[in-house]
């Protein structure tokens, strides 16, 4: 395919507030893969391929990995990348205050060595499964040592594009990195992000040809635009919507009451109304690509009010107790509002009337972070990777869980995660099965469906899409077809 260069106009829904790739969240998704490269990458099927790391060697005992860096990579500043930069990156990641999202993944790392300019050796606290090691390498974006301290405000790394200009709350412009190490990439001269606050406006801008591509828009708009001839690109990195339950509060302390919610989720309706049917229903927190995925659970725990009612009755709670809680809802998210109402409606069908506790963004996040809720919807990520990575999401954390607090009230879950982490060979499938069973029984998170994140809708003349395992926007292979 012959792709032309040009400036790609991209619409995105969140202002990009932060250039720290270790603060891995929707607000900088559009930038990460374009400003930075990581040690290794996954193909869309989850196969590891080299990137900044030329090669890597996992020790026999799975207690260390040795990474060999490319020697021809320069940072945006012009400086050549060495193992010292990886060292600085790892130090940041291992720092509880500054490591942010990487910190949890780094938990398995004991220490590291940089014997020469192109070699880094990571030592683990115990034997770590291959997949988990690869995830860590894929997660490690190399920062320039000098820029680490100021990384939030000024990008310092190596990647196909450089930051050219930013107008807060309105736009970010990237320009091609001429000294990029990958041959023939990037094709584009630059990428211009325009920040929108509303999905509808962003879609309209694409339709009126003010944009070439929109990123992370709503599924509903994507479906409509697909029918209108636009290209819709859905990657493997789905999120799973989880009805999170604070099992330390109110009726949810009762296990039978909780378990009823496995049957209470009208997953088809939720998928259709909230996500225009893009995604799959799931009773487990796994994307279809995950090794732990088990479609049988979807049958077993399909929407069934009678079963739910049985379990509720079995809980022995009074009617007043059953209704004595609220669903915390993020008023700023249309899908959350809609699907919370669906749950509310299902509950009403069996005589449980609860209210939505609708809060706006900051207030919602604060309540979420403090675990100050009974139940709420929230998407979880890393569900397509190594199953124990699910524990990086707050509700699934085994320690420092902000909702369930320490000690973890569901030790069987902590043990099941541990088992996954230490299982090798034949034990692996058994560990996964056990984890799935524990998940539905302890019922602190009731997954409903997987859904698209980082959905790309592009004008027909845009081509060269590269799918990313995390559904990040990869612009380096994009170009125009005419």
């Amino acid at each position, binding site marked *: 395919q012959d792709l032309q260069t040009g400036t790609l106009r991209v619409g995105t829904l969140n202002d990009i507030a932060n250039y720290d790739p270790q603060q891995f969240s929707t607000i900088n998704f559009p930038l990460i893969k374009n400003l930075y490269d990581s040690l290794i990458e996954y193909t869309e099927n989850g196969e590891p391929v080299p990137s900044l790391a030329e090669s890597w060697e996992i020790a026999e005992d799975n207690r260390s990995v040795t990474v060999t860096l490319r020697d021809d990579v320069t940072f945006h500043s012009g400086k050549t990348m060495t193992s010292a930069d990886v060292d600085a990156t790892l130090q940041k990641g291992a720092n509880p205050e500054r490591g942010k999202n990487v910190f949890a993944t780094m938990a398995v790392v004991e220490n590291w060595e940089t014997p020469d300019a192109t070699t880094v050796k990571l030592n683990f606290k115990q034997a770590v499964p291959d997949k988990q090691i690869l995830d860590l390498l894929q997660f490690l974006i190399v920062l320039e040592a000098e820029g680490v301290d100021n990384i939030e405000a000024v990008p310092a790394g190596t990647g196909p594009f450089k930051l050219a200009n930013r107008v807060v709350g309105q736009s970010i412009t990237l320009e091609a990195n001429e000294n990029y190490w990958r041959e023939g990439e990037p094709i584009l001269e630059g990428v211009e992000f325009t920040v929108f606050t509303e999905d509808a406006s962003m879609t309209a801008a694409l339709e009126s040809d003010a944009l070439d591509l929109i990123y992370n828009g709503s599924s509903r708009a994507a479906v409509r635009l697909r029918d209108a001839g636009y290209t819709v690109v859905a990657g493997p990195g789905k999120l799973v919507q989880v009805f999170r339950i604070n099992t330390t509060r109110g009726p949810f302390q009762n296990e039978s009451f909780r378990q009823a919610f496995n049957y209470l989720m009208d997953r088809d*309706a939720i998928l259709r109304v909230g996500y225009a049917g893009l995604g799959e229903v799931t009773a487990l927190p796994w994307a279809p690509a995950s090794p732990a995925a088990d479609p049988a659970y979807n049958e077993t725990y399909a929407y069934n009010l009678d079963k739910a009612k049985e379990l509720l009755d079995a809980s022995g709670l009074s009617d007043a107790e059953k209704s004595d809680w609220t669903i915390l809802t993020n008023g700023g998210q249309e899908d959350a509002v809609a699907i919370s109402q669906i749950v509310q409606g299902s509950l009403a069908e069996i005589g449980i009337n609860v209210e939505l506790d609708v809060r706006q963004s900051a207030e919602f996040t604060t309540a979420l972070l403090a675990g100050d809720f009974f139940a709420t919807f929230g998407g979880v990520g890393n569900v397509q990777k190594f199953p124990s990575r699910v524990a990086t999401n707050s509700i699934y954390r085994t320690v420092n869980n902000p909702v369930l607090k320490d000690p973890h009230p569901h030790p069987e879950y902590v043990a099941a995660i541990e088992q996954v982490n230490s299982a090798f060979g034949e034990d692996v499938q058994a560990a996964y099965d056990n984890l799935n069973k524990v998940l539905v029984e302890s019922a602190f998170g009731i997954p409903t469906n997987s859904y698209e994140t980082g959905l790309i809708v592009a004008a027909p003349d845009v081509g060269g899409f590269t799918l990313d395992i995390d559904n990040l926007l990869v612009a380096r292979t994009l170009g125009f077809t005419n």
Partner: protein
Amino acid sequence: MKKWLQALRRNLVALMRRPGAALSVIFLLAITLAAIFADFLPLDPLRQRVANALMPPNGTNWFGTDELGRDIIARVVYGARTSLITAAGAVAIAAAVGVPIGLVAGFFGGWRDAVLMRFIDVLLALPGILFAMAMIAVLGRSQLAALIAVGVTGIPSFARITRAQVLALRKRDFVTAVESFGGSSGYNMFRTILPNSWSPILVQVVVLSSVAILLEAALAFLGVGVPPPTPSWGEMLRTGKNYLYEAPYYAILPGIVLTLTILSFDTIGRALTEILEDRHDTGAGLKPEGSKA
């Protein structure tokens, strides 16, 4: 009391003589009755049938259904309840706070006037919608919060109208007359000036009702109104706007009802102004030609 009723009846009759105002009264009456007796109608605003989502208007669902398969007309009717309660409460708050402020400021003048009016200036200087949003941020999203926020933004208009009225009346001889035979300030304010200020205050009540409905809807549209699933017109427009392509009627039909309601209040307000002005209820404008005054 009887006189008051008489006056009310007289004004109502005059109102019903104007075709526009009469239609508006009938429309509002219908909306109000529907809102009050909604529970007796075969309408359920919360009943979801997701399989029937986004159905265009048809025999069962006259206004179609929304994204959760709820009956839009049911939500419009119950939304009227939200709007009317918010409007009534807000207007009551605004009047209860604004009128005394205006009375005191206008009657005593001096530092009391200066202090109270500065306070009113603050309320006035910030756009009402921003102010209301800040209030709701403080109070949390609820019907009560919306009602208070909308009410607070209405205080300045009552205060200013009352104050203007007091200033105009205070110079009038019948107020001086009360003073001349020894009536106290309180007597003058509440027994002489206030009863003579009813017409502009009444008009303001009607005008502010439409403003309150509009503001409530705007807040809901911005996503800070009455929390879902409670039906609210603004919220319906907000959600409906997302389905402009699939289901344009979802935003259009509730919008029509909202607009008609606002227009009705507005029409009545204007008619009332004209009627009360014509009648010289306050004696204003009654000056014989050739008088030496």
